[in-house]
């Protein structure tokens, strides 16, 4: 079967797709050519699948919470399994759009460049539906995904070369292009045919208007309105434990991000720790800020980078009247500055070397 897809074969235009499927189902039989004769068992697929496993608690909770919020808002009297089923029906189209559109462009660019399809999109595609409101129109999502993959990643050279986190870039695209569908009070509850759309304020917008009525426990467990996957700090924490245990994500970034958020949070009217359990702070801190490609790559840099993300996110929430949420913009901003921070850290190493040469 393979020759049909190889160069010169009938279906060579699908070669990258075939490779992707082959390496998906089988670890390839390639052996080391030069350099080390043995290699560690870990590869990017294993790394990426671990991130996806870490997202499973969030994913499952999101399905339930979509149904739960609908039930609550429309007063439908659904049972547990009905809520889960209705939530699943709402989230499924988001995932279909995210993966079909995203993987189409991934495969296309892999084919053009003659490389293997990179597994990075498995994670990006899994993240995107979790950070948008459940009511987002599918055509908007499709455009945003295309933008994130093509402009956000492929034009820079693909996974490993991108400057900004592609999933967040997708969200930023929606946020600035279709602000009405991304913020306000009307977008957080999935619509039910035959009913009017329901308004329901998120904790962040309540805080901005000064009358927060959600309890800390509600916000920690996550049965509150918000973007699909961001609400449950508890489930995010489960994911964080797995990521830190396996070493896939940097605990330094998470810790310093929390520290930055808490410190600036002291300036607000609500208790500082509320900032960690409201909105997208926890989700961004665990799954977005720690992206190994777009975060700082030096260990010292990671402390600075994480701290500034936390600090800026809460600063935006507290002092910017325009946007109730600041996590997305804080991460994208620090993505932009991560290379600069690294440059300064590496520069110190270079200066140390030069100084040593002078004194010797």
């Amino acid at each position, binding site marked *: 079967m393979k020759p049909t897809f190889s160069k010169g074969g009938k279906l060579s235009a699908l070669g990258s797709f075939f490779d992707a499927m082959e390496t998906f189902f089988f*670890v390839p039989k*390639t052996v080391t050519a030069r*350099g080390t*004769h*043995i290699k560690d*068992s870990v590869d990017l697929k*294993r790394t990426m699948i671990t991130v996806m496993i870490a997202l499973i608690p969030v994913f499952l909770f999101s399905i339930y919470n979509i149904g739960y919020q609908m039930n609550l808002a429309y007063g439908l009297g659904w049972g547990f399994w009905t809520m889960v089923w209705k939530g699943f029906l709402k989230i499924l189209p988001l995932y279909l759009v995210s993966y079909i559109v995203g993987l189409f462009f991934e495969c296309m660019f892999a084919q053009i460049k003659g490389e293997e399809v990179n597994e990075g999109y498995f994670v990006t595609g899994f993240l995107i539906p979790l950070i948008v409101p459940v009511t987002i129109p599918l055509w908007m999502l499709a455009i945003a995904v295309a933008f994130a993959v093509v402009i956000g990643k492929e034009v820079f050279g693909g996974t490993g070369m991108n400057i900004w986190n592609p999933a967040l870039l997708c969200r930023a695209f929606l946020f600035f292009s279709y602000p009405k569908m991304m913020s306000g009070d009307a977008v957080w509850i999935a619509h039910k045919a035959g009913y009017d759309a329901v308004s329901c304020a998120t904790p962040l917008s309540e805080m901005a208007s000064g009358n927060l009525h959600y309890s800390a426990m509600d916000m920690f467990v996550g049965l509150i309105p918000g973007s699909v996957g961001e609400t449950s700090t508890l489930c995010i924490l489960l994911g964080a434990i797995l990521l830190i245990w396996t070493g896939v994500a940097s605990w330094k970034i998470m810790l310093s991000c929390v520290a930055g958020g808490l410190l600036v949070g002291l300036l607000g009217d609500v208790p500082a720790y509320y900032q960690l359990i409201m909105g997208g702070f926890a989700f961004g801190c665990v799954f977005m800020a720690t992206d190994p490609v777009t975060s700082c790559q030096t260990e010292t840099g990671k402390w600075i980078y994480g701290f500034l993300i936390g600090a800026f996110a809460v600063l935006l929430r507290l002092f910017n009247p325009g946007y109730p949420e600041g996590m997305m913009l804080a991460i994208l901003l620090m993505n932009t500055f991560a290379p600069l921070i690294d440059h300064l850290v590496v520069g110190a190493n270079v200066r140390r070397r030069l100084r040593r*040469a002078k004194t010797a």
Partner: protein
Amino acid sequence: MSEHIRLKKGLDIPLAGAAPAKIAETVAPDLVAIKPTDFKALVPKLAVKEGDAVKAGDALFVDKMCPSISFCSPVSGVVQAVVRGDKRKLLAVVVKADKEQQSVKHNAVDLAKMDRKAVVDLLLERGLWPMIKQRPYGIVANPELTPKSIFVSAMATAPLAPDPDFVMEGQMEYLQAGIDALGRLTNGGVHFSLNAAKAAGSAMSSLKGVIPHTFSGPHPAGNVGVQINHISPINKGEIVWTVDLVSLAAIGRCIATGTYDMSRVVAVTGPAAENPVCIKAVQGMSLASIAKYAKKGNVRFISGDVLTGENVGADGYLGFFDNQVTLLEEGDYYEMLGWIKPFRLKKFSFSHLYWSWLAGKKKTYKLDTNTNGGPRAFVVSDVYGKVLPMDIYPVYLLKACLAKDIEKMENLGIYEVIPEDFALCEFVCPSKIEIQKILSDGIDLMLKEMM
């Protein structure tokens, strides 16, 4: 007073197939080869032709740029073949060994009465010079330069490397003679590093005329490059020389006895060794003479260790500096959905994405040559620093090498490293990047631009 340096970063790969410290037999190989490719950036010029008779210590080829450096036959016999590759590049000179071995006889010398130049000439004349390596770049030392100091590592941390104390049993007087000779070549002294855990009981700790150090920690703590980085890092414009322990003994032996004798203990190791053994053999021996120690099947014969050795094939030859053969099974098989399987308990990983980090230090693994994944761009970039105990940012240096930016390479420490120091980075890389190749190409570029 010896200085103790404790390193934490690094990794001892728990590879199965260590050889017990006992000589199983003496192997007298039928064929022996010396390969110019064992020396970085060497342009060889043949000194013999096929059919010539040579003694042990006669030059087979010389350095074209510096013809006083000669590369000698380790045995007496007849030149059987001059092996050439693409563009007639000289790959190896193969000698068929005589039954009765003869070597070139040199006179006894008194090092104490010789000045530096006389010692240099002695090493050149006796064909011992190629055993001295120069840093930066890891090339054969230039006899016209004087190094800042000379470094010898008596600590072996590479996977399955034979124990230096065992390999050097009964060689103390030769090591001492070698150190005495090297001591005349530099004003900075001979730095001699021992494994801290074994230093107390080691005969080598009583060697005189050295600046002693002890190191502890996982591989690459035994790499001389890592040790230099901690003892006295190389700055731009400086050069240091390094000599490995086996070569040091050979140098000393030739000075003390007048005989060019390249015999050595060779460890035959690895998961594909039928039973791992140590044998007494000679530099450049053909691996066909140890074929009986390998398992049947598709086995890779590596001269050296699994991280830095060369795949020479079952009919290949032991490298100039190597005292170890590693046998691995080729990993050319598919594994269905291997990357997603939760357990895979037979797989080893430095990361915590498999279970091997919980399995304890005693467990060993039969690793093979499968790459365990396809090549990717740099993604997970903080893993390299965890196995590189040097004050260097590996990803930035590698990217400077890829970008061919000489100034950046200098700034980021290209003078301090050779590929073997980055070998573990390559092992742990989840993107399966050929890191040693990138660094080696970077060094080639430096050599081209700087020389």
